[in-house]
Protein backbone atom coordinates (compact mmCIF):
# COMPACT_ATOMS: atom_id res chain seq x y z
CA UNK A 1 0.00 0.00 0.00
CA UNK A 2 2.85 2.33 0.93
CA UNK A 3 6.23 2.02 -0.70
CA UNK A 4 9.00 4.46 0.17
CA UNK A 5 12.40 4.08 -1.44
CA UNK A 6 15.52 6.04 -0.59
CA UNK A 7 13.44 9.09 0.31
CA UNK A 8 15.27 12.34 1.01
CA UNK A 9 13.40 15.48 2.09
CA UNK A 10 15.05 18.81 2.82
CA UNK A 11 13.90 22.06 4.41
CA UNK A 12 16.25 24.51 2.74
CA UNK A 13 19.74 23.37 3.69
CA UNK A 14 18.55 21.06 6.49
CA UNK A 15 18.01 17.41 5.62
CA UNK A 16 14.98 16.03 7.48
CA UNK A 17 14.92 12.59 5.87
CA UNK A 18 18.00 10.96 4.43
CA UNK A 19 17.55 7.89 2.23
CA UNK A 20 14.59 6.40 4.10
CA UNK A 21 12.99 3.20 2.79
CA UNK A 22 9.94 1.51 4.24
CA UNK A 23 6.84 -0.34 3.14
CA UNK A 24 3.40 -1.18 4.43
CA UNK A 25 1.62 -4.08 2.75
CA UNK A 26 -2.09 -4.67 2.30
CA UNK A 27 -3.73 -5.35 5.67
CA UNK A 28 -0.49 -4.87 7.56
CA UNK A 29 -0.01 -2.90 10.78
CA UNK A 30 3.40 -1.26 10.83
CA UNK A 31 4.91 1.04 13.43
CA UNK A 32 7.40 3.84 12.99
CA UNK A 33 9.08 4.77 16.25
CA UNK A 34 11.72 7.31 17.06
CA UNK A 35 12.46 10.34 19.20
CA UNK A 36 11.25 13.90 18.67
CA UNK A 37 12.80 15.54 15.63
CA UNK A 38 13.68 12.23 13.97
CA UNK A 39 11.69 13.18 10.87
CA UNK A 40 8.53 11.18 11.53
CA UNK A 41 6.13 14.02 10.78
CA UNK A 42 8.13 14.98 7.70
CA UNK A 43 7.60 11.43 6.43
CA UNK A 44 3.87 11.70 7.15
CA UNK A 45 3.53 14.98 5.29
CA UNK A 46 5.46 13.58 2.33
CA UNK A 47 3.21 10.50 2.21
CA UNK A 48 0.18 12.79 2.09
CA UNK A 49 1.67 14.85 -0.72
CA UNK A 50 2.05 17.96 1.42
CA UNK A 51 5.85 17.96 1.03
CA UNK A 52 7.90 17.23 -2.09
CA UNK A 53 10.77 14.73 -1.97
CA UNK A 54 14.23 16.05 -2.87
CA UNK A 55 15.17 12.52 -3.96
CA UNK A 56 13.80 9.00 -3.85
CA UNK A 57 10.34 7.67 -4.50
CA UNK A 58 7.06 7.57 -2.59
CA UNK A 59 4.20 5.50 -3.92
CA UNK A 60 0.85 5.01 -2.26
CA UNK A 61 -1.69 2.65 -3.77
CA UNK A 62 -5.25 2.80 -2.56
CA UNK A 63 -6.95 5.50 -0.54
CA UNK A 64 -4.80 6.94 2.24
CA UNK A 65 -6.12 8.92 5.16
CA UNK A 66 -4.19 10.68 7.90
CA UNK A 67 -4.91 11.25 11.56
CA UNK A 68 -2.52 14.15 12.09
CA UNK A 69 -0.46 14.83 15.19
CA UNK A 70 -2.30 17.18 17.54
CA UNK A 71 -5.59 15.97 16.00
CA UNK A 72 -6.17 19.19 14.02
CA UNK A 73 -9.94 19.15 14.17
CA UNK A 74 -11.94 22.07 12.79
CA UNK A 75 -12.67 23.61 16.19
CA UNK A 76 -15.60 25.90 15.21
CA UNK A 77 -17.44 23.07 13.44
CA UNK A 78 -19.50 20.35 15.08
CA UNK A 79 -18.43 16.71 15.32
CA UNK A 80 -20.79 15.81 12.50
CA UNK A 81 -19.49 18.60 10.28
CA UNK A 82 -15.91 17.53 10.97
CA UNK A 83 -16.79 13.99 9.95
CA UNK A 84 -18.51 15.14 6.75
CA UNK A 85 -15.41 17.08 5.70
CA UNK A 86 -13.40 13.88 6.14
CA UNK A 87 -15.15 12.68 2.99
CA UNK A 88 -14.55 15.97 1.12
CA UNK A 89 -12.85 14.19 -1.78
CA UNK A 90 -15.69 11.67 -2.14
CA UNK A 91 -19.38 11.95 -2.81
CA UNK A 92 -20.76 9.83 0.01
CA UNK A 93 -20.73 12.01 3.10
CA UNK A 94 -23.13 9.90 5.18
CA UNK A 95 -21.71 9.89 8.69
CA UNK A 96 -23.84 7.05 10.10
CA UNK A 97 -21.27 4.27 9.35
CA UNK A 98 -18.72 6.11 11.51
CA UNK A 99 -21.21 6.39 14.39
CA UNK A 100 -21.75 2.64 14.09
CA UNK A 101 -17.99 2.04 14.29
CA UNK A 102 -17.39 4.59 17.05
CA UNK A 103 -20.69 4.69 19.00
CA UNK A 104 -19.28 7.05 21.64
CA UNK A 105 -19.30 9.84 19.04
CA UNK A 106 -23.04 9.64 18.37
CA UNK A 107 -24.16 11.65 21.45
CA UNK A 108 -21.52 14.30 20.65
CA UNK A 109 -22.51 14.82 17.02
CA UNK A 110 -23.82 18.37 17.48
CA UNK A 111 -21.07 19.48 19.86
CA UNK A 112 -18.36 21.83 18.61
CA UNK A 113 -15.12 19.90 18.17
CA UNK A 114 -13.14 22.56 20.04
CA UNK A 115 -15.12 21.83 23.20
CA UNK A 116 -14.35 18.10 23.40
CA UNK A 117 -11.83 16.39 25.66
CA UNK A 118 -8.53 15.20 24.19
CA UNK A 119 -9.73 11.59 24.00
CA UNK A 120 -12.99 12.58 22.31
CA UNK A 121 -11.09 14.74 19.85
CA UNK A 122 -8.77 11.87 18.97
CA UNK A 123 -11.83 9.70 18.38
CA UNK A 124 -13.29 12.36 16.03
CA UNK A 125 -9.94 12.64 14.24
CA UNK A 126 -9.99 8.87 13.72
CA UNK A 127 -13.63 9.01 12.58
CA UNK A 128 -12.88 11.86 10.18
CA UNK A 129 -10.07 9.81 8.63
CA UNK A 130 -12.34 6.75 8.34
CA UNK A 131 -14.97 8.85 6.51
CA UNK A 132 -12.85 8.73 3.34
CA UNK A 133 -13.11 4.88 3.48
CA UNK A 134 -9.34 4.51 3.50
CA UNK A 135 -7.47 1.34 2.66
CA UNK A 136 -4.44 2.60 4.52
CA UNK A 137 -4.50 4.79 7.59
CA UNK A 138 -1.53 6.83 8.79
CA UNK A 139 -1.77 7.83 12.44
CA UNK A 140 0.68 10.40 13.75
CA UNK A 141 1.18 10.29 17.52
CA UNK A 142 -2.10 8.67 18.47
CA UNK A 143 -1.31 8.36 22.19
CA UNK A 144 0.13 11.83 22.81
CA UNK A 145 -1.54 13.49 25.80
CA UNK A 146 -4.16 10.79 26.23
CA UNK A 147 -4.96 8.62 29.26
CA UNK A 148 -3.81 4.98 28.93
CA UNK A 149 -7.40 3.74 29.02
CA UNK A 150 -8.36 5.99 26.09
CA UNK A 151 -5.32 4.83 24.14
CA UNK A 152 -6.23 1.20 24.79
CA UNK A 153 -9.74 1.87 23.43
CA UNK A 154 -8.36 3.46 20.27
CA UNK A 155 -5.93 0.59 19.81
CA UNK A 156 -8.84 -1.87 20.05
CA UNK A 157 -10.68 0.04 17.32
CA UNK A 158 -7.67 -0.15 15.05
CA UNK A 159 -7.19 -3.88 15.66
CA UNK A 160 -10.83 -4.47 14.85
CA UNK A 161 -10.77 -2.42 11.61
CA UNK A 162 -7.61 -4.25 10.64
CA UNK A 163 -9.05 -7.68 11.40
CA UNK A 164 -12.50 -7.14 9.85
CA UNK A 165 -11.72 -4.92 6.86
CA UNK A 166 -8.03 -5.46 6.27
CA UNK A 167 -7.32 -1.79 6.95
CA UNK A 168 -3.57 -1.22 6.68
CA UNK A 169 -2.09 1.03 9.35
CA UNK A 170 1.14 2.97 9.63
CA UNK A 171 1.36 4.00 13.27
CA UNK A 172 3.82 6.75 14.07
CA UNK A 173 4.50 6.75 17.79
CA UNK A 174 6.80 7.98 20.48
CA UNK A 175 5.19 5.41 22.76
CA UNK A 176 7.23 2.48 21.46
CA UNK A 177 5.67 -0.07 23.79
CA UNK A 178 2.20 0.68 22.45
CA UNK A 179 3.45 0.67 18.85
CA UNK A 180 5.28 -2.64 19.17
CA UNK A 181 2.32 -4.23 20.95
CA UNK A 182 -0.14 -3.18 18.29
CA UNK A 183 1.88 -3.69 15.12
CA UNK A 184 3.53 -6.73 13.62
CA UNK A 185 6.49 -4.89 12.08
CA UNK A 186 8.31 -1.71 12.98
CA UNK A 187 10.95 0.73 11.83
CA UNK A 188 13.12 2.91 14.06
CA UNK A 189 13.78 6.38 12.68
CA UNK A 190 16.58 8.45 14.19
CA UNK A 191 17.95 11.75 12.84
CA UNK A 192 16.27 11.22 9.48
CA UNK A 193 17.49 7.65 8.93
CA UNK A 194 16.05 4.20 9.52
CA UNK A 195 18.41 2.70 12.08
CA UNK A 196 16.57 -0.55 12.74
CA UNK A 197 13.67 -2.51 11.32
CA UNK A 198 12.09 -5.91 11.67
CA UNK A 199 9.25 -7.71 13.40
CA UNK A 200 7.99 -6.08 16.57
CA UNK A 201 9.05 -9.10 18.57
CA UNK A 202 12.60 -8.94 17.22
CA UNK A 203 12.87 -5.20 17.81
CA UNK A 204 11.44 -5.46 21.33
CA UNK A 205 14.04 -8.12 22.00
CA UNK A 206 16.91 -6.03 20.66
CA UNK A 207 19.02 -4.54 23.43
CA UNK A 208 19.52 -1.13 21.82
CA UNK A 209 15.82 -0.62 21.03
CA UNK A 210 14.79 -1.87 24.46
CA UNK A 211 17.23 0.49 26.15
CA UNK A 212 16.36 3.54 24.06
CA UNK A 213 12.61 3.19 23.67
CA UNK A 214 11.23 0.74 26.17
CA UNK A 215 13.00 2.10 29.22
CA UNK A 216 14.78 -1.22 29.85
CA UNK A 217 18.43 -1.70 30.62
CA UNK A 218 20.35 -3.21 27.70
Amino acid at each position, binding site marked *: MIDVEELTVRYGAATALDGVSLSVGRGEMVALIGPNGAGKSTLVNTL*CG*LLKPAAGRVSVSGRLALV*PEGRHLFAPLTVDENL*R*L*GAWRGRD*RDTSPVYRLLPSLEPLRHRRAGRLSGGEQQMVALGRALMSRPEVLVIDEMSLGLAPLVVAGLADHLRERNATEGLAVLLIEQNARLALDLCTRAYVLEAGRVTASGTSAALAGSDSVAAAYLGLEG
Partner: protein
Amino acid sequence: MGELAGYLITGAGIGCAYALTGSGLVVIYRVTRVVNFAQGTFAVLAALTVTTLLTAGLPHGLAEGLAVVLAGLVGVLVGLVAIGKPGTTPQAALIVTLGLGVLAYAVEIVIWGDQPRSFAGVPGSVTVLGTRIQAHYLLIAGVTAVVLTGAALLFARTDLGRALTATAADPYAARVVGINVLRMGLLAFAVGGALGGLAGVLVTPVQQVSFDSDVALVVNGFSAAILGNLTRPGLTLAGGLLLGIVQALVGGYLSTSYQTEVALIFMLAVLIARAGRRDVVEAV
Protein backbone atom coordinates in the same frame (compact mmCIF):
# COMPACT_ATOMS: atom_id res chain seq x y z
CA MET B 1 -41.26 62.77 12.73
CA GLY B 2 -41.33 62.58 8.95
CA GLU B 3 -37.88 64.09 8.74
CA LEU B 4 -36.48 61.65 11.30
CA ALA B 5 -38.04 58.67 9.53
CA GLY B 6 -36.52 59.90 6.28
CA TYR B 7 -33.06 60.04 7.81
CA LEU B 8 -33.50 56.60 9.34
CA ILE B 9 -34.52 55.01 6.03
CA THR B 10 -31.97 56.72 3.82
CA GLY B 11 -29.32 56.02 6.46
CA ALA B 12 -30.27 52.35 6.54
CA GLY B 13 -30.04 52.28 2.72
CA ILE B 14 -26.48 53.57 2.73
CA GLY B 15 -25.82 51.33 5.74
CA CYS B 16 -26.73 48.33 3.57
CA ALA B 17 -23.89 49.24 1.21
CA TYR B 18 -21.53 49.46 4.20
CA ALA B 19 -22.80 46.10 5.42
CA LEU B 20 -22.27 44.49 2.00
CA THR B 21 -18.76 45.95 1.75
CA GLY B 22 -18.06 44.85 5.32
CA SER B 23 -19.45 41.37 4.66
CA GLY B 24 -17.10 41.04 1.70
CA LEU B 25 -14.23 41.89 4.04
CA VAL B 26 -15.52 39.34 6.55
CA VAL B 27 -15.81 36.51 4.00
CA ILE B 28 -12.27 37.12 2.75
CA TYR B 29 -10.85 37.52 6.26
CA ARG B 30 -12.62 34.47 7.64
CA VAL B 31 -11.17 32.20 5.00
CA THR B 32 -7.75 33.73 4.30
CA ARG B 33 -7.00 35.92 7.38
CA VAL B 34 -6.27 38.72 4.90
CA VAL B 35 -7.76 42.18 5.50
CA ASN B 36 -8.56 43.20 1.93
CA PHE B 37 -8.01 46.93 1.55
CA ALA B 38 -9.03 46.72 -2.11
CA GLN B 39 -12.58 45.93 -0.98
CA GLY B 40 -13.93 49.40 -1.87
CA THR B 41 -12.41 49.08 -5.33
CA PHE B 42 -14.85 46.30 -6.23
CA ALA B 43 -17.76 48.66 -5.56
CA VAL B 44 -16.29 51.49 -7.61
CA LEU B 45 -15.33 49.24 -10.52
CA ALA B 46 -18.76 47.65 -10.64
CA ALA B 47 -20.58 50.99 -10.43
CA LEU B 48 -18.46 52.61 -13.16
CA THR B 49 -18.86 49.50 -15.33
CA VAL B 50 -22.64 49.80 -15.05
CA THR B 51 -22.48 53.39 -16.36
CA THR B 52 -20.60 52.15 -19.43
CA LEU B 53 -22.87 49.14 -20.02
CA LEU B 54 -26.01 51.28 -19.75
CA THR B 55 -24.54 53.80 -22.19
CA ALA B 56 -23.83 50.90 -24.55
CA GLY B 57 -27.53 50.08 -24.50
CA LEU B 58 -27.74 47.14 -22.11
CA PRO B 59 -30.92 47.03 -20.05
CA HIS B 60 -31.02 47.59 -16.30
CA GLY B 61 -30.65 44.33 -14.42
CA LEU B 62 -28.35 42.79 -17.01
CA ALA B 63 -25.89 45.68 -16.75
CA GLU B 64 -25.85 45.52 -12.94
CA GLY B 65 -25.61 41.71 -12.97
CA LEU B 66 -22.65 41.71 -15.36
CA ALA B 67 -20.91 44.37 -13.28
CA VAL B 68 -21.28 42.25 -10.12
CA VAL B 69 -19.87 39.22 -11.97
CA LEU B 70 -16.97 41.38 -13.18
CA ALA B 71 -16.33 42.50 -9.58
CA GLY B 72 -16.24 38.83 -8.55
CA LEU B 73 -13.70 38.09 -11.29
CA VAL B 74 -11.60 41.08 -10.25
CA GLY B 75 -11.85 39.64 -6.73
CA VAL B 76 -10.27 36.41 -7.99
CA LEU B 77 -7.49 38.43 -9.67
CA VAL B 78 -6.81 40.39 -6.47
CA GLY B 79 -6.80 37.08 -4.58
CA LEU B 80 -4.37 35.51 -7.03
CA VAL B 81 -1.92 38.39 -6.65
CA ALA B 82 -2.40 38.64 -2.86
CA ILE B 83 -2.34 34.98 -1.80
CA GLY B 84 -1.42 33.06 -4.95
CA LYS B 85 2.22 32.65 -4.02
CA PRO B 86 2.56 29.89 -1.41
CA GLY B 87 3.82 31.11 1.94
CA THR B 88 2.57 34.69 1.59
CA THR B 89 1.67 35.94 5.07
CA PRO B 90 -1.69 37.68 5.64
CA GLN B 91 0.22 40.85 6.56
CA ALA B 92 2.11 40.87 3.27
CA ALA B 93 -1.12 40.13 1.40
CA LEU B 94 -2.78 43.10 3.15
CA ILE B 95 -0.11 45.44 1.76
CA VAL B 96 -0.55 43.86 -1.69
CA THR B 97 -4.29 44.61 -1.60
CA LEU B 98 -3.55 48.20 -0.58
CA GLY B 99 -1.23 48.52 -3.59
CA LEU B 100 -3.80 46.98 -5.92
CA GLY B 101 -6.38 49.49 -4.67
CA VAL B 102 -4.08 52.35 -5.63
CA LEU B 103 -3.36 50.72 -9.01
CA ALA B 104 -7.11 50.53 -9.58
CA TYR B 105 -7.32 54.35 -9.24
CA ALA B 106 -5.05 54.71 -12.25
CA VAL B 107 -7.05 52.21 -14.30
CA GLU B 108 -10.36 53.83 -13.36
CA ILE B 109 -9.17 57.35 -14.20
CA VAL B 110 -7.84 56.19 -17.58
CA ILE B 111 -11.13 54.48 -18.48
CA TRP B 112 -13.78 56.66 -16.82
CA GLY B 113 -12.04 59.95 -15.93
CA ASP B 114 -12.06 61.58 -12.53
CA GLN B 115 -15.59 63.02 -12.47
CA PRO B 116 -18.35 61.49 -10.34
CA ARG B 117 -20.88 59.35 -12.20
CA SER B 118 -24.26 57.95 -11.45
CA PHE B 119 -27.13 56.11 -13.10
CA ALA B 120 -30.84 55.84 -12.53
CA GLY B 121 -32.15 53.33 -10.04
CA VAL B 122 -35.71 52.19 -9.40
CA PRO B 123 -37.88 55.15 -10.45
CA GLY B 124 -40.54 56.82 -8.33
CA SER B 125 -41.05 57.25 -4.65
CA VAL B 126 -43.03 55.54 -1.91
CA THR B 127 -44.40 56.65 1.42
CA VAL B 128 -42.89 54.82 4.39
CA LEU B 129 -43.64 55.82 8.00
CA GLY B 130 -45.25 59.01 6.81
CA THR B 131 -42.32 60.18 4.74
CA ARG B 132 -41.69 59.99 1.00
CA ILE B 133 -38.48 58.24 0.00
CA GLN B 134 -37.03 57.08 -3.31
CA ALA B 135 -38.32 53.61 -4.16
CA HIS B 136 -34.74 52.57 -4.87
CA TYR B 137 -34.08 52.37 -1.11
CA LEU B 138 -36.49 49.44 -0.92
CA LEU B 139 -34.49 47.62 -3.60
CA ILE B 140 -31.27 48.23 -1.65
CA ALA B 141 -32.78 46.84 1.55
CA GLY B 142 -34.45 43.88 -0.17
CA VAL B 143 -31.41 42.78 -2.17
CA THR B 144 -29.13 43.18 0.85
CA ALA B 145 -31.43 41.06 3.01
CA VAL B 146 -31.66 38.30 0.41
CA VAL B 147 -27.94 38.25 -0.41
CA LEU B 148 -26.71 38.33 3.19
CA THR B 149 -29.21 35.62 4.16
CA GLY B 150 -27.94 33.55 1.23
CA ALA B 151 -24.33 34.07 2.30
CA ALA B 152 -25.18 33.07 5.89
CA LEU B 153 -26.91 29.91 4.65
CA LEU B 154 -23.94 29.09 2.41
CA PHE B 155 -21.61 29.13 5.42
CA ALA B 156 -23.95 27.40 7.87
CA ARG B 157 -25.75 24.81 5.78
CA THR B 158 -23.55 23.64 2.92
CA ASP B 159 -20.45 21.47 2.83
CA LEU B 160 -18.80 24.14 0.67
CA GLY B 161 -19.45 26.70 3.42
CA ARG B 162 -18.11 24.29 6.03
CA ALA B 163 -15.02 23.74 3.91
CA LEU B 164 -14.53 27.52 3.73
CA THR B 165 -14.81 27.73 7.52
CA ALA B 166 -12.53 24.71 7.91
CA THR B 167 -9.90 26.35 5.72
CA ALA B 168 -9.91 29.38 8.01
CA ALA B 169 -9.93 27.31 11.20
CA ASP B 170 -7.04 25.02 10.31
CA PRO B 171 -5.45 25.25 6.85
CA TYR B 172 -3.19 22.25 7.55
CA ALA B 173 -6.09 20.01 8.51
CA ALA B 174 -8.03 21.30 5.51
CA ARG B 175 -5.21 20.09 3.24
CA VAL B 176 -5.09 16.78 5.09
CA VAL B 177 -8.73 16.05 4.21
CA GLY B 178 -8.14 17.14 0.62
CA ILE B 179 -9.55 20.67 0.62
CA ASN B 180 -7.68 22.88 -1.84
CA VAL B 181 -6.81 25.80 0.43
CA LEU B 182 -5.78 28.17 -2.36
CA ARG B 183 -8.98 27.47 -4.29
CA MET B 184 -11.04 28.19 -1.16
CA GLY B 185 -9.15 31.45 -0.65
CA LEU B 186 -9.81 32.50 -4.25
CA LEU B 187 -13.47 31.56 -3.90
CA ALA B 188 -13.63 33.81 -0.82
CA PHE B 189 -12.08 36.64 -2.83
CA ALA B 190 -14.64 36.03 -5.60
CA VAL B 191 -17.55 36.19 -3.12
CA GLY B 192 -15.98 39.23 -1.43
CA GLY B 193 -15.55 40.92 -4.81
CA ALA B 194 -19.15 40.23 -5.80
CA LEU B 195 -20.47 41.53 -2.46
CA GLY B 196 -18.37 44.68 -2.87
CA GLY B 197 -19.57 45.06 -6.46
CA LEU B 198 -23.16 44.68 -5.34
CA ALA B 199 -22.68 47.44 -2.77
CA GLY B 200 -21.46 49.81 -5.50
CA VAL B 201 -24.19 48.88 -7.98
CA LEU B 202 -26.94 49.32 -5.38
CA VAL B 203 -25.81 52.59 -3.86
CA THR B 204 -24.75 54.55 -6.94
CA PRO B 205 -28.29 55.64 -7.94
CA VAL B 206 -28.65 57.42 -4.58
CA GLN B 207 -25.03 58.46 -4.08
CA GLN B 208 -22.69 59.37 -6.94
CA VAL B 209 -19.52 57.34 -7.35
CA SER B 210 -16.05 58.40 -8.47
CA PHE B 211 -12.70 56.65 -8.61
CA ASP B 212 -11.91 57.51 -4.98
CA SER B 213 -15.30 56.62 -3.48
CA ASP B 214 -13.73 53.38 -2.31
CA VAL B 215 -12.16 55.11 0.68
CA ALA B 216 -15.49 56.04 2.28
CA LEU B 217 -16.89 52.59 1.51
CA VAL B 218 -13.92 50.66 2.84
CA VAL B 219 -13.58 52.82 5.98
CA ASN B 220 -17.26 52.37 6.76
CA GLY B 221 -17.32 48.72 5.70
CA PHE B 222 -14.25 48.03 7.82
CA SER B 223 -15.81 49.81 10.82
CA ALA B 224 -18.92 47.70 10.43
CA ALA B 225 -16.84 44.53 10.14
CA ILE B 226 -14.77 45.47 13.20
CA LEU B 227 -17.96 45.42 15.27
CA GLY B 228 -18.26 41.78 14.22
CA ASN B 229 -14.57 41.19 14.96
CA LEU B 230 -14.02 40.77 11.20
CA THR B 231 -15.55 37.31 11.44
CA ARG B 232 -19.25 37.69 12.24
CA PRO B 233 -21.55 38.66 9.36
CA GLY B 234 -24.61 39.32 11.55
CA LEU B 235 -22.82 41.94 13.64
CA THR B 236 -21.32 43.39 10.47
CA LEU B 237 -24.82 43.97 9.12
CA ALA B 238 -25.85 45.59 12.40
CA GLY B 239 -22.70 47.74 12.36
CA GLY B 240 -23.31 48.84 8.77
CA LEU B 241 -26.92 49.83 9.43
CA LEU B 242 -25.95 51.65 12.64
CA LEU B 243 -23.21 53.59 10.88
CA GLY B 244 -25.44 54.54 7.94
CA ILE B 245 -28.22 55.74 10.22
CA VAL B 246 -25.95 57.69 12.59
CA GLN B 247 -24.26 59.33 9.62
CA ALA B 248 -27.61 60.30 8.12
CA LEU B 249 -28.68 61.79 11.46
CA VAL B 250 -25.38 63.66 11.89
CA GLY B 251 -25.58 64.85 8.30
CA GLY B 252 -29.19 65.93 8.71
CA TYR B 253 -29.11 67.62 12.07
CA LEU B 254 -25.46 68.77 12.31
CA SER B 255 -23.31 68.87 9.18
CA THR B 256 -22.54 66.47 6.33
CA SER B 257 -18.84 67.24 6.74
CA TYR B 258 -18.69 65.11 9.92
CA GLN B 259 -19.93 61.90 8.30
CA THR B 260 -16.58 60.13 7.81
CA GLU B 261 -15.50 61.08 11.31
CA VAL B 262 -18.53 59.22 12.64
CA ALA B 263 -17.16 55.96 11.18
CA LEU B 264 -13.67 56.59 12.46
CA ILE B 265 -14.85 57.46 15.98
CA PHE B 266 -17.14 54.41 15.93
CA MET B 267 -14.27 52.14 14.90
CA LEU B 268 -11.94 53.61 17.53
CA ALA B 269 -14.58 53.26 20.23
CA VAL B 270 -15.14 49.59 19.37
CA LEU B 271 -11.41 48.90 19.27
CA ILE B 272 -10.73 50.66 22.58
CA ALA B 273 -13.66 48.94 24.26
CA ARG B 274 -12.25 45.58 23.22
CA ALA B 275 -8.54 46.39 23.45
CA GLY B 276 -7.96 44.05 26.36
CA ARG B 277 -9.37 41.04 24.57
CA ARG B 278 -6.99 38.66 22.87
CA ASP B 279 -9.20 37.76 19.90
CA VAL B 280 -9.46 41.36 18.73
CA VAL B 281 -5.75 41.98 19.04
CA GLU B 282 -5.29 38.95 16.81
CA ALA B 283 -7.94 40.17 14.36
CA VAL B 284 -6.48 43.64 13.91
